[in-house]
């Protein structure tokens, strides 16, 4: 999940070891320096495309614009047979993955439907559907 942070970690640690005595001497809070030395923080939630998000949801190969065959009939958002709740952060990682695989069509529908009906949440600045936002928190815990 955090491929961008792995490569720079060594560099920042080395840099920190060199400059930290100087910075401490200048009165910079030690906490700032140790947070650098502890390793680069996680910021990236995919490796660079929405595809990778979908891959991590277990919906490989399906375009978001594609209407899933299991889409329930009736007005969008009113009659849904899909999962009512996304997996919770407390679920075991293996259960989460199997949950996604099992519910992939319903999840895909919910993502489209979420955007259609403005059920969105902003996570780290990314405007995601409610379903994705919940997924994000789950996978962040996995990482």
């Amino acid at each position, binding site marked *: 999940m955090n*491929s*961008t942070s792995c*490569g*720079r970690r060594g*560099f*920042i640690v080395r*840099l*920190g070891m060199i400059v930290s005595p100087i*910075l401490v001497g200048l009165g*910079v809070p030690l906490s*700032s*320096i140790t*947070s*650098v030395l502890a390793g*680069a*923080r996680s*910021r*990236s939630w*995919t*490796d*660079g*495309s*929405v*595809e990778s*998000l*979908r891959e991590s949801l277990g919906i490989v190969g399906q*375009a*978001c*614009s*594609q209407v899933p065959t299991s889409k329930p009939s009736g007005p969008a958002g009113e009659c849904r047979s899909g999962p009512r709740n996304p997996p919770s952060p407390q679920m075991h990682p293996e259960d989460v993955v199997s949950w996604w695989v099992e519910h992939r069509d319903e999840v895909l529908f919910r*993502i*489209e439907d*979420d*955007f*259609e009906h*403005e059920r*969105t949440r*902003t996570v*780290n*600045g*990314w*405007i*995601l*559907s409610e379903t994705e936002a919940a997924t994000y928190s789950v996978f962040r815990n996995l990482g």
Partner: protein
Amino acid sequence: MATDGRDIPQDTVLEFDVCVIGAGAAGITIARDFSGEHMRVGLLESGGFHYEKEVQKLYRGQNTGRPYFRLDEARLRFFGGTTNHWEGWCRPLDPIDFDQRDWVAHSGWPLTREELLPYYRRAHKLCQLGPFDYNPENWFSSWDGDAILRNSLKKIAPTVFQYSPPTRFGVEYRDELEQADNVEILIHSTVTELVPKRGAEEIKIARIRTLAGNEFHVKADHFVLATGGIENARLLLASNSVRPAGLGNRHDLVGRFFMDHPHFVAAALLPARRKLRLPFFKRREVDGTTVEGVLTVPPEIQKREMLLNLSVQLRPPKQLANTYLGADDGWLAVRDVFADMKRGNPPSDLARHLKRILGDLDGTIEGAYQEVSGSDTTVFPLFCRTEQCPNPVSRVQLSRETDALGVPRADLHWTLSRQDLQSVRRGMELLAMEMGRIGVGRVKVPATVDQWGSRIEGGWHHMGTTRMAHDPRSGVVDPQCRVYGLENLFVAGSSVFPTSGFSNPTLTIVALALRLSTHLKRLS
């Protein structure tokens, strides 16, 4: 015929039927429209036929509001005016831009787009554009990769800009004007004051000075002020020898309501496919006309959401880490300091920036590292050009400093309101939902609108300072662009715009100039 003002003897009085002050897009359009008529027209230009440093310095002024461009770089003072560095973007204002909108204070033009339509069509020819057609379907019939944009959008809509070659009005129309028997071009002739008759509601003379030191005067039945969105206000305010508050300023409106089109990267699009192709956003030539697509918010959604008008364009892909959206506050502070320096200004609020840098040292180091190394998250910056609310606090005033001809310099206090920024934010949310719904990708916005901060620039579009209105308590000029309280003084240019839409102003400036010259011909 062209005369150099520096050769005119001291205290000469020249007489014309119509005196047009300023030879930019508006002034040249009006003078040209009178070509071949029975009325004598004087077209006064402060500069010469080419750029001159000393003349350009007359444009120097100060910025006391949010960061803005140097005033002597944001416009040009020679024959052809600012069209000499115009990029050529053209699009008429939308019908909704003319409406009185409950959610936009001081909105509403005293004319409709319908009334302006015939002049827009004529303006198209002057700006050397293609057919008057802004329906994207008619221009992008062969959108190969864009069917998804064309067929699926609901809360946002595609539209197009056309591009002028661009027309350099001074170059393109100089010969025609010089050959016109009834038009006299006066170069190096700077109007320093318009002097009204005492006790009467009309301009008696225009006082003209040159950098060579001579002074002369022009009398005319009608004067048209066409010196640009900042200078129109400056000259009205500086014409204060008879009326201390300046001309047309009985209600303290001259110079107020200054608007520009905020330009900035408001968000970023992470594409669903690694190789996202959206040729809609690429500038292309269709049957000899250059066009380019942008996205906008349809009027019904603007009404429902109470938004200002807005356009969005995809910029070439960039690594997220190299946009401010992917950086931490410490690194953003470094970039803010560099941005100030790049504009030629000393870093503003340096102590605060240093505190941000030291308070987020890991973010600063990481940002610097990513700047050098790059990362693999590629996004498309979403570049916005937006409308801003008419705001009386945003204004042009006179500075205490004077220029080489003794005229007080302009003091520009450009201000944006919270509503301006929140409107863009909501527009980005709507765009994000549409991009998610149709599967194009996901959008990232800054945590708060304050993060846009100094990244917001203007477009060198100076508008609103002599706004048009139905009554003198709401505007400086009437619906025919006549200055309230002065029978023979008219204003041409974007300073009369009550609101700005998001379209670049030149096409509307030319259309309004044609409308004004038609009106003046009727009066004569």
